[in-house]
């Protein structure tokens, strides 16, 4: 049964992704993207990684996509993008990328299936362990430096984003 659910969810994800990349309206694309992320979160649940699923929903779908939507709304890209995309995204312009993406897909598949192919016949069993606890132990144990690094990275991104986005003739320029 898990396989069936997985199959359906996978199909939903792929369809949403396709609509996202070929949509003309930015807001529609973003909303379909959110659905795609929720589907992926469901797959994480199926794989027995509840913590990852929760993070996917809270952070990815809940913060990052919201950020996208904020910026889109700020720049009034909603209606403007529709006429814009008529010139920017044409069918003839998309033929070659389709070809390239398909080639990529086929090539890697071929690569994975060469040899004796025994690698891919493994099966992923649902983890019957408490992965959240394991993650916690790992984060406070061997990988504690990674936490610090990630924090530094986020801090620098924060500072950078503020600095870049301040308008040039603003009165607050020069202040940290």
């Amino acid at each position: 049964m898990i396989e069936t659910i997985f199959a359906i969810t996978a199909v939903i994800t792929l369809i949403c992704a396709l609509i996202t990349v070929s949509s003309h309206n930015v807001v529609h694309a973003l909303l379909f993207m959110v659905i795609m992320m929720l589907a992926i979160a469901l797959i994480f649940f199926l794989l027995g990684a509840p913590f990852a699923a929760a993070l996917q929903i809270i952070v990815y779908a809940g913060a990052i996509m919201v950020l996208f939507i904020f910026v889109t709304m700020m720049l009034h890209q909603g209606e403007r993008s529709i006429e814009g995309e008529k010139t920017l995204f044409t069918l003839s312009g998309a033929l070659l990328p389709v070809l390239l993406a398909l080639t990529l897909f086929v090539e890697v598949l071929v690569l994975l299936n060469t040899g004796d192919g025994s690698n891919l016949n493994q099966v992923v069993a649902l983890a019957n362990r408490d992965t959240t606890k394991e993650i916690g132990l790992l984060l406070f144990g061997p990988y504690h430096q990674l936490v610090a690094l990630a924090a530094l990275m986020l801090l620098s991104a924060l500072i950078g984003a503020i600095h870049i986005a301040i308008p040039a003739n603003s009165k607050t320029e020069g202040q940290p």
Partner: protein
Amino acid sequence: MHQTLLTLIPIVPFLSALILFSVRLPKILVTTLAVSSIGVAALCVLAIQLTSATDFTPIQAVLGQWLDVAGVKLSFAFYLDGLSLMMISIICGVGWLIHVFSAAFMQQDCDYRRYFCYLNLFVAAMLILVLADNLLLLYLGWEGVGLCSYLLIGFWHDKRSNNIAANKAFIMTRIGDTAMLLGLLLLFWQFGSLNISEINQQAALQMGTNDVMINLSCLLLFIGAAGKSAQFPLQNWLPDAMAGPTPVSALIHAATMVTAGIYLIARNISLFSAANDTLQLIAVVGTITLLLGASAAMVQSDLKRILAYSTISQLGYMFLALGVGANGAASFHLMTHAFFKALLFLAAGALIYCMHHQHNIFKMGGLARKMPVITAAFITGCAALSALPLLSGFFSKELILGQVISGDHWWLWLGGVLGGFCTAFYSARLVLVVFFGPVQQQPNKKVPIMMSAVLVALIMLSIFGGMMPASINAQFPAASVELTPLQHYLPIASPFIAMALAFLCWRSGLFGAPLKSPLVRTLHSWLLNGWQFDWLYQQIFVRPYFFITRLNRHDIIDGFYRAIERLMLALHRLTSLTQNGSLRLYNASILLFVLGALAWVILSGGVV
């Protein structure tokens, strides 16, 4: 003890040259160092002369091993026999006198130190040449004197014509040097050694066989000698070499360097005796050269050029003597020539110094009363040159002509006599035009005491130096000659006839008068340019070379490299087209590359 003295002789001038090159000394110290180094060498020579036996056994001094590779064993050693003893006596003796003269002549020059450095280096190289016991060391000295000759001819290097003259001298002697090197290689290939004694011993066994290889190597050595001693056809560098300071002309182009060729042949006389064809060629070339020099000297108007052509002519006499086998006579004439030619050149130097650097004899006249010492010097020198009786030149030239005719070489003998006639003619012309007659230009300086003293010493040598040195006589015993009265007295009488003719021409104002007939004028200019050899070489060598360089104006070889450069630039422009700043293109190219890499991995068997 002799060996120490022998070693000191070339080393002291060389060290002096080294010191003068590297350390800045005040003028007085430079003079002392330079003159005394040659003086020390001269004293060593004197000591050796006084303390050696009359039959004169050779002395050898070995300084060390030079080469010892693949069967070539050469040592850095000096060898002194009768011939080289005479040569080093001339070099050190006359050289010392010329150094003293130079100290006075170059007093006002600002490159004083450089002059004496080169001059000492020259003497050192010449001594190495003369004392070498193997041909490669001799070649070292040979090249050394060639270098110093170049440096000293072009001494006043701001003037472009001096540079050109120095280049001409160096390049023409270089042609000879290359031939000589080939000769050396052939000799080594034949005899397995370059040691002069060994080669001559082995060659003496083959005397008279006229072997082809020996002829070839002797011919090549002779070409080298002809280059250095300004013989036909490599003679036209010597008149232009008069661009250097006059003491340099005296030392290098009268007494020492140009005699190196004669020394080479005289030293290897056993080798050359085995090559009869080459000896005949040498005699013929010598005769042609002596006629060339004598005839050209008759019409020159530059004082030093007269003396230069005269040197060419006298060297021709020496080669003529060598060619007929009269080696003792040739060496003797070398010695006497060194005396009177050095005297003539130094007197010319003093004359030029006092006449405000005037070279044209037709602008001088009547200087006999103002400058007695120089007049005496010129008269003595020219008399010795014309082989007037009882002067030094008389004994040596008569000896040569006697030996030539006793070998039944009638045409060569006639050439020698005709050359003697012309020699007397131009010497008389020189003396008459410069020292007698109306005064054209007054001298503006008095002759310095140093110069006068040196000139007096050389006058004495020219008059009393007509004795065959014992060492030469021991090494090259002269065959006794039987001469008919005509053969005996014609060479003695012809200089007097020539002098009388010259006096008549001078009296009738023929010298320096403008020429009317075009035939005479062509003849005059042909002689004036030394039988037009410069023009000949210009047509044969220089113009085709320039033609080829004009064809290669765009430089084919360089064009190849520039084509590579242009190809690279074109490729660069091509690849910068991909740098168009378009983000999508960059993305697409990354993707394409990844696809390509994956395809390559798949096609080469995949990753397991």
